[in-house]
């Protein structure tokens, strides 16, 4: 009988050294049971039967082969059938049983490590199918991430049995297996020849090993449901995977495992967002990427199942509505009081040009439009840079710093004063604008464009919020398109007037309405200042509030002085006041800030991973509230849902331990927990039933008292059953 080496297609197919076979197997089988010896048996027809009986007895006694014991891992070859029949496929597999804290790798090992390799050595006519890799888990190793298995794992493959088994009594299945077993501190390569003898014809199941295969089956990825609509886009350092028409539960949040090591950054959080009837997963591309991939191939976990997906990457699709909105918004910017006077003058001047100047005026208008668009691109660039930083640190990070909160309050306060006409800084900017834009060179036209954008921002920032918010959540290309639309919108009326002079008289006249509008806009800004001071009060207590209010007072004084008098001494006084404001405001920075004086009605346990573990070990149900003082949604949820009488009563009734994970100030423990749920921001509400087998339940970001009570009731019912 000839032996044929069959190499299973695996993730890491580069093998040079062919293993040399010494003594077959690892002492698991009597010599007479191996396929090679069976060949010798052929000549001895009488002896054969008794050998076969011995073989079967040995097999049944061992229910497979004896594991090879190596440091930190046991490896064995197993099958789900006690015997094989001609033409009937069986499943074989390599099983790793790992010591606590050690892991082996998935086909894509992640940042480091390497996948196990299996080289099948099969009798003639037998072939082995591809190794099926159960869905791995994310294993963090310092700042890096591995994809792999801890505990135990079975890598199954189909064994195709030929139609003709001649008159064999048993066949020997062998595999040369290599692996790398690691813990966070070290890695140990291992290698072992494994073998398994299968008798022919007996069809009794092997209960022990059949169960192993039954256990692994739900962990094997299946084809994605027909109903799903999958799409993917790549933009900059981001890959976005959108899955719609999803009926499956979305808790825990979906995770993606790419087949290629060169697709994503394994350690980056995968941010998950709900879409109307599905979800969006934002992945960080492989840091070293040089070419744009054509598809996202890998395994996606949704709920308890995992699915093999291959999604072609489409060029980023740009929806028209936001662009149209941005365009209209840009046009409206023209009529903001900061912009209109400058442009109106300019436009009227152009209208006065004689017909021979018309062509020149048109060219000017185009250059002006370029100036506007260029400055919007500059703004977009800055925003994208901030976003890249924000994505690294988790949204809202800036608001964790009390000095940042104070600075923001001061900025908004100053802007409000400008809008109310107290300060003259805004008008002096416009003055500069006028100076630079005077003249008829292309340079002045370009600068008029830039200045139109610049002077527009102070009185429109609150209004552009929607467009900016949208742009922030989109891939860079879309963000850029939105900003371009805004710029084109801003540039259009001026350009239109130069091209169609008849439009000129139809423009609304500058008038008192502009001043009213401008002053009205101050109040949303002042409301923001109030909110920021409240945030600071939670971060820094009354001392911070006093410091910020004093700084605002000094700023107010400076604004009034510069608005009232234009002389040099006024500027000196204003400068002194502003410096004082900076000094007072800055004083809150280095101080250790007192924790908020909490007067909670529920006794919230402060979060720590160890404490949570402890409660869960005791089998107690736990509700974790991931929150921050600067997170408005969190505050609203707490006031309107969590701290209502109904919810509190229900929690006490069921014995739920309320745990609060406060992210107001940076807390690595909380950040890690958020990342475990694929989040990079608050709010997040997680309900643990206290039963080991129950996955934690993630509540929606917007809570109502009723929805929380319903969740608690369901939990109570589950615990009773």
């Amino acid at each position, binding site marked *: 009988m000839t032996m044929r080496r069959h190499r299973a297609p695996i993730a890491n197919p580069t093998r040079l050294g062919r293993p040399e076979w010494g003594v077959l197997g690892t002492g698991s089988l009597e010599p007479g049971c191996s396929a090679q010896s069976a060949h010798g048996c052929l000549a001895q027809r009488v002896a054969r039967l008794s050998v076969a009986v011995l073989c079967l007895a040995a097999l049944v006694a061992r229910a497979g082969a004896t594991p090879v014991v190596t440091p930190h891992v046991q490896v064995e070859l197993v099958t789900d059938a006690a015997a094989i029949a001609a033409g009937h496929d069986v499943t074989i597999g390599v099983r790793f049983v790992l010591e606590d804290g050690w892991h082996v790798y998935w086909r894509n090992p992640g940042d480091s490590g390497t996948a196990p390799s299996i080289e099948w050595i099969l009798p003639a006519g037998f072939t082995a199918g591809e190794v099926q890799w159960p869905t791995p888990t994310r294993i963090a190793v310092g700042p890096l991430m591995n994809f792999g298995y801890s505990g135990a794992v079975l890598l199954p493959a189909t064994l195709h049995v030929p139609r003709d088994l001649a008159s064999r009594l048993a066949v020997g299945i062998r595999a040369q297996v290599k692996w790398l077993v690691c813990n966070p501190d070290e890695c140990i390569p291992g290698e072992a020849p494994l073998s398994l003898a299968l008798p022919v014809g007996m069809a009794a199941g092997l209960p022990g090993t059949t169960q192993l295969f039954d256990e692994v089956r739900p962990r094997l990825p299946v084809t994605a449901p027909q109903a799903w609509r999958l799409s993917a886009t790549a933009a900059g350092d981001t890959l976005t995977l959108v899955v719609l028409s999803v009926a499956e539960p979305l808790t825990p949040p979906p995770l993606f495992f790419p087949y290629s090591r060169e697709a994503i950054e394994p350690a980056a959080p995968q941010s998950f967002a709900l879409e109307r009837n599905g979800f969006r997963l934002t992945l960080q591309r492989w840091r070293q990427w040089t070419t744009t991939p054509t598809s996202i191939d890998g395994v996606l976990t949704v709920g308890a199942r995992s699915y093999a997906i291959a999604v072609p990457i489409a060029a980023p699709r740009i929806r028209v509505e936001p662009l149209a909105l941005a365009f209209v918004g840009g046009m409206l910017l023209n009529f903001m009081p900061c912009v209109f006077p400058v442009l109106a003058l300019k436009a009227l001047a152009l209208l006065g040009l004689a017909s021979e100047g018309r062509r020149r005026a048109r060219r000017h208008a185009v250059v002006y439009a370029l100036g506007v668009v260029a400055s919007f691109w500059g703004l977009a660039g800055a925003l994208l840079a901030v976003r890249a930083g924000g994505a690294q640190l988790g949204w809202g990070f800036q608001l964790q710093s009390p000095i*940042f909160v104070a600075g923001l309050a001061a900025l908004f306060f100053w802007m409000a004063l400008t809008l109310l006409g107290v300060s003259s800084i805004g008008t002096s900017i416009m003055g500069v604008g006028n100076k630079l834009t005077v003249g008829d060179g292309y340079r002045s036209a370009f600068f008029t464009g830039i200045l139109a954008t610049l002077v527009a921002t102070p009185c429109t920032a609150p209004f552009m919020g929607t467009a900016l918010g949208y742009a922030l959540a989109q891939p860079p290309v879309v963000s850029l398109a939105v900003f371009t639309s805004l710029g084109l919108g801003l540039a259009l009326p001026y350009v239109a007037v130069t091209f169609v002079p008849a439009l000129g008289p139809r423009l609304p006249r500058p008038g008192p309405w502009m001043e009213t509008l401008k002053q009205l806009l101050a109040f949303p800004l002042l409301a923001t200042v109030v909110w920021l001071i409240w945030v600071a009060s939670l971060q820094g207590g009354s001392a911070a509030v006093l410091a910020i209010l004093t700084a605002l007072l000094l700023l107010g004084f400076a604004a009034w002085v510069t608005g009232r008098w234009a002389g040099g001494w006024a500027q000196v006084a204003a400068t002194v006041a502003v410096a004082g404001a900076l000094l007072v405001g800055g004083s809150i920075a280095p101080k250790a800030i007192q924790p908020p004086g909490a007067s909670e009605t529920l006794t919230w346990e402060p979060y720590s991973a160890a404490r949570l573990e402890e409660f869960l070990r005791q089998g107690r149900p736990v509700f974790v509230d991931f929150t921050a003082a600067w997170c408005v949604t969190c505050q609203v949820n707490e006031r309107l849902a969590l701290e209502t009488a109904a919810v509190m009563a229900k929690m006490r009734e069921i014995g739920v331990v309320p745990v609060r994970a406060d992210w107001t100030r940076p807390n690595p423990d909380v950040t890690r927990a958020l990342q475990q749920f694929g989040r990079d921001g608050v709010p997040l509400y997680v309900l643990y039933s206290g039963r080991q087998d129950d996955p934690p339940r993630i509540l929606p970001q917007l809570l109502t008292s009723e929805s929380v009570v319903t969740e608690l009731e369901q939990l109570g019912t589950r615990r009773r059953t």
Partner: protein
Amino acid sequence: MKVWSRVLVTAAVVAASWFGVPRGFAAGAPRIGAPAPEFTAADLQGHERRLSEFKGKFVVLEWHNQGCPFVKKHYNSGNMQRLQKDLTGQGVVWLTVISSALGKQGYVTPDEETKYLAEKQAAPTDVLLDPDGTLGHLYGAKTTPHMFVIDDHGVLVYDGAIDDKPTTDLADVDGARNYVRAAYEETKAGKPVSVATSAPYGCSVKYKE
């Protein structure tokens, strides 16, 4: 309320861009074709070495951990030493970087490393000790080995694995395509690097927690 908070955060971000607060956040790990980031690190004699002092020369950075089986593959086979001698013989500066934290695998004192170099007959230009992981994080080094090639203009031309056989088998050294050698030779010949990035393979760098 959610929309309002989003508007506020957005406004905060716009304001942040005016303040210039986040400048530098986006400066992540190095990219191919861009200048390699400048660094300062101590060598075995305690001398501060800088990337800029090697201006005008090719520089190879090799992340190293003598306990790692992937590193052993290249040192026990003599593959790494051969490459070190070949390249340094042509004027290339070879810097071996050890980012293992104190108490972690691969952490060495200068004496231990000197002994190791002699025993293995290794020939790097210098060895940089980076137990804080600063240099490792600056370059985004993930594994041992993880190789970087910087050309004589200070531009990063290669970032990735040492070769195309991601195993611990000594037998896989022969016949492997060495990406570092190829990147050096191609750049030297004025040609574009055919494989400028690859997923590095090896043990995780044992960074400080």
